Each structure stands twice: as structure tokens, then as C-alpha cells.
């Protein structure tokens, strides 16, 4: 768990402005506890007094992560339970939005339902965790599209053709493909964001979330392999790789010509790939152009500081 002194230090170093820093501290239960001296506050304020442009600090990064967690939580909540997050978990700074699409997967297998419910519970817990950590600086859930976005993604990947639609909630197999689209992105997003975090405490928390996302990705990739969906996953992987720019940061679930399983996508050193926030935005906006600010799963863009690819 976070140590109080370390958190105060981290927040003072990384907060964009005085108001944000205060809300961080208050949210962590530190401001009223007398743990923060006036001198410390004054120092931090002075350090940030000349900050004219948005600063990519820990708060900005965590809010970026919160945007992604909203998306995952909504996707899995609908898939597992047939409804999205309650409004109480969607409030915050920025422009709030609703969720388009989504419904419960018609599970035929209790095991598959268990998988979906466990992942849904994790993603909702991530939302709660980040919202608590960010307190009043937490961004609200932006508008999320779980309907047209998947069709656009599937068409772009060549999984379906123009004129067809893809509903990731229509079957257990479709659900796995939808989940695949998210999970590998989540892993690489947290890996890419980790070096940007100033706070070791937040870095530790992010590592914890990354590990859980990696567990999820492993589950999904394994199930997709068992279902024989390597062709579709390969196409989705290629599409992600195309959207995020140069370099190969993505792999399908098989390797070689003999359908050998490739359940753990890694580089030559068996390290997970990483993506910058901009590369992640290219994927979730379904647009590989630099400077894109909305589209795809976020029709109105993200909330917070990090919104442009």
C-alpha cells in the first residue's frame, strides 16, 4: 500500500497545479490529516506557477488509464451482466458521455460466463481504484461506442467486409474477439506508461494493473486458440499494428506455418511490448493519423490531458 509520506511527495512533484494537488491529497485522505505542511504546499505551488501548458504528470497518465478502464469496464460489464457502469462510477471532470451498444453475451457455457464475470469485476475494480486515487481530479467517462466501433474495427481488419456488421456481444466467440481487441492494447498501454510515472507508488499500482491485464490477455488468447480463431485474431493484430505506426508491437495467437500457439506476445527478450499513449489513441480512435482527437471507441475523444494521438 501507499506510504503517506511518499504519496505526499509524489503528489507535490507531479501535480499539474495547486488545485489538482490539493484534490489528490484530499482524495488520498492526507490533506486534512495534517500531513502536509504549509511550506510543502508553497513549494509545490511555486514549482508549478509558470506552468502554462498542460503537463503530462502522473495525474494525467492515471486519467488516461482511467479512460481506457472505462472502456474495458463497460465492454465487460455489458458482456457479463447486461448493463454498464452505474452513473456513480462515471462522473468526474471533462465531458461526460453515454454508452452506445452493448448487451449480455448469450452464454452457452458456464465456464465462459465465469471468465467474463471475473474480468468484468477486475475492470470495474480498476475504475474504482483509479477514481479513488484521483479523487476529484478523476475524469468522467467519455462517450463510448461499443457498436459501430467494433464494426469499423472488424472491417478495417478485414475480419468482415463492407456492409457487414460485427457485434462482439452476439456469441461467445465474437465476445472473445472483441476482448482480444482490447486486452493486448491494455497491456502495452500500461507498459508504455510505466516509465512516464514519477511516483514509485503509482508505478507499483500500474504494474499491478498491468499484470492483471496481462492475465486477461493470456486468458483471452488461450481461449481464442482453443476456438480456432487464429485467422481473425491475426487480422486484428495486423490492424492494430498498422494503426500504431512503424514497428511491430503486436502478434497473433499462432506463429509459423503449423498453427503453433503464440499465447504470449513478446519481443526478442520475451518482454511485453509497449505503446505510447499516442499509439494507444491511434488504435482506440481507429485512426492512425497523428493529431487525431476522437473517433472509434471514443466518438468525442478522451477526457483529460492526453487526448491527441
Amino acid at each position, binding site marked *: 500500500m501507499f506510504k503517506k509520506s511518499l504519496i505526499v511527495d509524489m503528489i507535490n512533484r507531479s501535480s499539474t497545479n495547486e488545485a489538482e494537488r490539493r484534490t489528490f491529497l484530499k482524495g488520498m485522505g492526507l490533506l486534512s490529516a495534517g500531513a502536509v505542511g504549509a511550506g510543502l504546499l508553497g513549494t509545490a505551488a511555486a514549482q508549478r506557477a509558470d506552468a502554462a501548458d498542460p503537463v503530462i504528470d502522473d495525474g494525467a497518465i492515471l486519467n488516461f488509464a482511467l479512460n481506457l478502464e472505462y472502456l474495458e469496464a463497460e465492454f465487460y460489464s455489458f458482456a457479463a451482466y447486461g448493463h454498464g457502469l452505474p452513473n456513480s462510477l462515471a462522473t468526474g471532470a471533462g465531458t461526460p458521455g453515454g454508452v452506445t451498444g452493448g448487451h449480455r453475451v448469450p452464454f452457452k457455457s*458456464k465456464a465462459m460466463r465465469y471468465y467474463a464475470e471475473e474480468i468484468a469485476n477486475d475492470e470495474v475494480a480498476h475504475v474504482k481504484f483509479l477514481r479513488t486515487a484521483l479523487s476529484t481530479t478523476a475524469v468522467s467517462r467519455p462517450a463510448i461506442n461499443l457498436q459501430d466501433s467494433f464494426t469499423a474495427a472488424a472491417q478495417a481488419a478485414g475480419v*468482415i467486409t463492407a456492409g457487414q456488421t460485427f457485434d462482439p456481444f452476439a456469441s461467445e466467440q465474437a465476445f472473445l474477439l472483441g476482448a482480444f481487441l482490447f486486452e493486448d492494447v491494455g497491456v502495452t498501454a500500461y507498459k508504455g506508461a510505466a516509465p512516464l510515472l514519477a511516483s514509485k507508488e503509482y508505478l507499483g499500482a500500474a504494474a499491478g494493473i498491468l499484470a492483471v491485464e496481462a492475465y486477461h490477455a493470456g486468458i483471452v488468447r488461450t481461449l481464442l486458440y482453443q*476456438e480456432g480463431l487464429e485467422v481473425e485474431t491475426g487480422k486484428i493484430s495486423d490492424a492494430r499494428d498498422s494503426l500504431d505506426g512503424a514497428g511491430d508491437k503486436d502478434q497473433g495467437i499462432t506463429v509459423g506455418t503449423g498453427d503453433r500457439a503464440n499465447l504470449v506476445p513478446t519481443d526478442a527478450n520475451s518482454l511485453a511490448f509497449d505503446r505510447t499513449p499516442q499509439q494507444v489513441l491511434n488504435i482506440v480512435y481507429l485512426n492512425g493519423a497523428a493529431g487525431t482527437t476522437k473517433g472509434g471507441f471514443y466518438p468525442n475523444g478522451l477526457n483529460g490531458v492526453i487526448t491527441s494521438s
Partner: protein
Amino acid sequence: MTRNHRTARAIGAGAALLVGLGTVAATAAPADAATGFAFDQRIAGTDRYTTAVEASKRLSPMDGTSEDVVIVNGTATVDGLTASYLAGLYSAPILYTQTDSVPAVTAAEITRLGVKNVWIVGGEAQVSAGLEKAWKDSGKEVVRYAGANRYATAAAVAQADENFPPEKVFIASGTSTADALAAGPIAWAKNYPILLTQADSVPAETSAALDALETPTRTVLGGTSVVSDATYASLKATSRLAGTNRQDTATKVADYAVASENFDPQSVGLVGGAAGASADALVAAPVSGAQGVPVLFTDANGSLGATTTTYLTSRKADLAEPGNGWIFGGLTAVPAATAAAATAAVQ
């Protein structure tokens, strides 16, 4: 004979993906619904058969997308009291037949869904052998769950899943059916079977089923007038959800559904509380289970009643869009004035 649907299967990529093609998210609550929570989502037909079909269409709006259907006699719903659990195992709707004939609307819905597997709940006196043969002759697989009485039928249904033991079991009165119906959406969504009992003794079939299931978490539905404390002890029950009447018990089940079973705190459904409306409550289970909507009962006379009114008012801070207020059944079961009263209660 029973059939195992739990066996892991390798589904070809093409076939698997086709399931997701050409479909739209039609059962989701509309994100851009009109401002203000209201009981304006009514699922109803001209009779119980068409109401069941309307519920099925809401559950599976796309043609050819449900291979499974659970069939219950439309006038002997006590046999189908526990069908919600069976339907939930396959994410299936519940449709009604008569004993020796299938209403045209039901037959059309079976065709529309593209049903391949028919799961009958009830003996041949409820769904005749002739109907079973006709479905088999048309190429469908048919499995019947039936016993010598309602308790035995419930016990047979409860053991339908041969691979996974249920995490929890509900036990309700076999003669006061409202409590079991209130739990139907949870039974559907979470695959918790519903066993039936007498108030002061545990039927042998129920006891045997509990032994076979080996599920230690056993929740009794209803107060001591329908399941006595002694029976509770005999059942080795671990909790009880009960109110002062069926309406009140339904509110306890609803609270439990939201607090413990991931149901939607922002949605709620309303079903007629008269005995004759039980058919609507049963077919509501798949739709409400699929969207995580707990259900409440009106009073027996169709009015909202003090208990449900008070409960809705107490929940008005939670009930909000994009959640929905659902009504299951026609205007006789839940009059328009009752829907308006329910809306007023949450304003």
C-alpha cells in the same frame, strides 16, 4: 435423456464468426433515452403465449440466433416454476404451449429463432408426447425434465447441468409461487437452480436433489409461513430472503440481486402480483436476467401497492437513465395507472 452441452468444442473460425455478423446490439438500454426514469418499457402480448413471444423477441431480436428454447405448458406454470434456471443455462427464452398443440405464435417464434434444441419442463400431461415427437421429427433435439410432481420436476431441472455444480441453490415454496418467480431473473443469469419445498416438511425429491448437488450455499425464499424455521433447518439453508408478503419478499430479492449478483441498480421491472400473472413473471426471467433487472410485484388487484411504492421511492436516487423501468405483462396485469404510479414513485 439428457444431453451434455458443456463439452468443450472446437468451433471452426468461420462458423464462430458468423454468429457475430449481421447483428446489432438490440437488447441494450438506449443510451439516448428521454430524460427522466419512467416505467415505459412494456413487454406484453394479447395473451400469455404472445407475451412470452414478445419477451423472446426482446431477448433475441435477431432471427436465427437462439438454438435453444425452453417449453412450458402455458396454463400449468407451476411445473415451469423453475424453468428460468434451465433457460439460463443456454441463454434461452421460455415459450408456452398447450398440452397437445403449439399456438401458432409460439411455433412461429420457434422457427424465427432457429431453434435446434427444445428443452421441455413438465410431464406429458403438460406437454404431450405428440408435441415432443413432432419436434423430433422436424430434426430438433428434445430433452424433457419431468417428475411425478412439482417437487420432482424441480429436482430434475435443478440437476440439468452435469458438469458444473451450481454455486448457490434457491429453495422456495411449491405452493406459494411468487417467491420463486421473484428469483427467476437471478436463477437465469447466475445459473442458480430453484428447488421447491412444503412449508413444514422437505419433499424427498428436494432432499435428494440437494444431496446430489452438494451445494452448501442454500437460500430460502419467503417467510416462515411458506418455509418454516424447522424446514429451513432441515434444508441446511444458509440464508433467507423474506419480507412480510410477496411484494416485500420481492424487494428483498431485488436488493440482494443488486448487492450480491451484479444486477443493475439503475433498472427495475414490474410484474403483476395476481396469481394469474405468474405466467408473465416466468417469461420475464430471461429478459430481466439478461439485463440484470430485478423484478417487483404489484398488489394482487393490479395496483402498485404500498410495499412496492415505498420501495421504489426509497430507490429513486439509484433508478436513473440509462437504466429502465420495465413492465412485464399486459394492461390487465399491470394497468397503465399502475405504471404511472410507479413512475411517480421514483420521481
